[in-house]
């Protein structure tokens, strides 16, 4: 049979099956189980109405249970067992986790994931916010928005292929087909090289450090205000944020020093994806490129929701455009920013396709999801693979809960 026909039949049967299920189960409930007739008509109607939601939810609950809840428990079980040669399995307790923690590749994946976790949501949200604010003010803003949003329509693998071409390398005497190398070869160590490769990155890092300091200060400041009610867990949380911020600021300042110390190999085409540490960032760019559109669309809607007269009041109060943006608009859309940030964070924690398609975790670019895939499907070690999956779930869950909580508060 023609596969297209097969697909069509599947769709018809699937949709028809759903409709039939809802229709006939409803009929069964109303006409057979609790008919609205006879001496108990009133009670029957009430009972039917109590059961109906569960009846209609059943297919969804069943599918979720089968494909989501059951795998979680099965993965947990698998992570505690070990495959025996010749079939069967045995209970090994936490041995898989111990083995995993002993592997340097796991720690590399964890470190890279943390790096992704910091850089990608921050950059996507920041660029999205910037794009949202700027495109709202220009005439061709809607076109710009569409262009920025378009990467959302590309699959991660497709985007990876595009960027692999951008990062492509040819021998020095051949024309470069990769945009990045073509650009790179324009630099030969003169004035503009200094500007673009030392000063601009240093400024970006400095700005990053400043933003981190600002955010940390916002977090920490309430500790110095007296008389405010504080939960018992807020102080450690604030201290933790402060500590993380200080570490990040230290990292960025050290990187600035390194940038100025580094000897750059001008004139030689680079294989970008094999430069340890930095290649992580070349991978992150792909996800940032995709997620900026998402952040922009959501934040642009939020920005439009900021009452115009509060902006005008601020103008009369003497605020300049930056102050209006950072002190009037951004605080008003802060809940949305948090939702966007956490949503991207979850995407980042699960990132797999990009790494898989571009480096497959070589050259120190491993991330947890790809590590899990490696173990589970390549090394056929279901124990460690499942253990890695559990670690990912453990990391995602709190953020997910927080995200849902925030989103629901937004709706109220």
């Amino acid at each position, binding site marked *: 049979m023609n596969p297209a026909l097969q697909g069509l039949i599947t769709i018809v049967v699937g949709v028809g099956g759903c409709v039939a299920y809802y229709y006939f189960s409803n009929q069964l409930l109303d006409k057979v189980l609790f008919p609205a007739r006879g001496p108990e008509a009133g009670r029957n109607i009430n009972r039917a109405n109590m059961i109906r939601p569960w009846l209609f939810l059943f297919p969804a609950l069943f599918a979720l249970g089968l494909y989501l809840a059951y795998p979680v428990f099965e993965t947990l079980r698998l992570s505690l067992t070990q495959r025996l040669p010749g079939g069967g399995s045995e209970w090994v307790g936490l041995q898989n986790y111990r083995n995993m923690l002993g592997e340097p590749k796991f720690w590399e994946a964890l470190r890279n994931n943390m790096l992704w976790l910091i850089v990608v949501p921050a950059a996507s949200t920041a660029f999205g916010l910037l794009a949202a604010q700027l495109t709202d003010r220009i005439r061709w803003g809607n076109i710009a928005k569409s262009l920025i949003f378009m990467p959302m329509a590309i699959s991660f693998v497709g985007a990876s292929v595009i960027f692999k071409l951008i990062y492509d390398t040819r021998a020095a005497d051949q024309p470069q087909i990769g945009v990045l190398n073509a650009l790179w070869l324009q630099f030969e160590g003169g004035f503009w090289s200094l500007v673009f490769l030392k000063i601009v990155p240093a400024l970006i890092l400095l700005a990053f450090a400043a933003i981190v300091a600002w955010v940390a200060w916002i977090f920490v400041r309430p500790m110095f205000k007296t008389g405010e009610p504080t939960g018992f867990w807020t102080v450690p949380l604030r201290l933790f944020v402060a500590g993380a911020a200080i570490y990040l600021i230290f990292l960025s300042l050290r990187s600035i020093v390194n940038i100025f110390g580094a000897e750059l190999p001008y004139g030689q085409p680079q294989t970008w994806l094999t430069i340890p540490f930095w290649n992580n960032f070349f991978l992150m760019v792909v996800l940032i490129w995709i997620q900026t559109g998402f952040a922009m669309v959501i934040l642009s809607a939020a920005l439009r929701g900021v009452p115009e007269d509060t902006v005008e009041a601020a103008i009369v109060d*003497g605020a300049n455009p930056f102050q209006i943006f950072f002190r009037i608009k951004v605080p008003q859309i802060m809940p949305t920013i948090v939702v966007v940030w956490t949503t991207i964070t979850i995407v980042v924690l699960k990132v797999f396709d990009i790494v898989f398609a571009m480096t497959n975790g070589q050259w120190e670019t491993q991330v947890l999801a790809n590590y899990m895939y490696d173990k589970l499907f390549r090394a056929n070690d279901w124990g460690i693979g499942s253990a890695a999956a559990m670690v990912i779930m453990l990391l995602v869950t709190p953020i997910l809960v927080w995200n849902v909580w925030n989103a629901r508060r937004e709706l109220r």
Partner: protein
Amino acid sequence: MAGLKLTDVAKAYGEVKVLSNINLDISPGELIVFVGPSGCGKSTLLRMIAGLEKITGGTLEIDGVRVNDVPPAQRGIAMVFQSYALYPHMTVRDNMSFALRLAGKSQAEIDAAVEKAARALQLGPYLDRLPKALSGGQRQRVAIGRAIVRDPKVYLFDEPLSNLDAALRVATRIEIAQLKEAMPDRTMIYVTHDQVEAMTLASRIVVLAGGGISQVGTPLELYERPENEFVAQFIGSPAMNLFKGEITGTGTATAVRLAGGGTAVSAVPTRDGEQGLRVNVGVRPEDLVPTDDAAFLYQGTVDYTEALGEVTILYFHAEPGETAVIAKLPGIHADLRGRNVRLKADPRKVHLFSNGKSLLYRK
């Protein structure tokens, strides 16, 4: 001390002319009220003074300095918005201190100014609340407090009370009046739809209509000596009655034969040779009194009465397409319904308009 001078101020959105030829001289310490029908450009004019709207023609001077291109914050103005426009993420205290903070004032100065304004507006207990935890009246007071804290030379109010209920509106109106009395040298410009607000607050009222100024004057001037039919009908409620007629006698007093068969005598002088001139005779409902004399100004059947307690409003029968004549009598006269009533008026209260303009102001 700051006066404002508007010279030929105009506003156009592209091709659409919204305001033109606005000339206005506001002395320091005045409370000017802009009134006019919806869409006549009151808010636009106020926002031009504030600097939120670009002035597309003419000049605006504050304190003798041309400020057309001066940013709002440096014009020495503060604005209170109809929708309050409080910063929702800031406490009342932060809302009020925002402008001072931007201006780089010291913490001590800011605290002193906020405390003082909060005391004047009884906002003390709410200083650490967010706007969403305040009632409408409290929010409006915060918005006023935000203006006071900056101690501007000119206060601008755009329908500040229109979102409040009737009782609160009266209370807040009195608060604004007292605020003005406490700051005799501060200029205020106030936009409103509400006649009572305009009449009670204003030192002078500016009536805007059709993209220009219809008349400027004290509330009583506008009430007693309207320059044109529009102002005559706009000020006062119910609106002034207009009767069509023809001048029959001229001199220091003018006699007019009315279309309805009555005659009106007005204290407005007319010149010889103006006999036969078609005029509109304007009489306010409260100036019409019942009469049994043979000489009457208007007679008709009372279709409907509204007894408000201290006054009764009579609506006379009108043919479809005509406006009903309205009279306002002191006391309760519900029994007049369905009766034929004759009305007369004091000649000093009878206005004459020709081509929409009052004959009183003609040169």
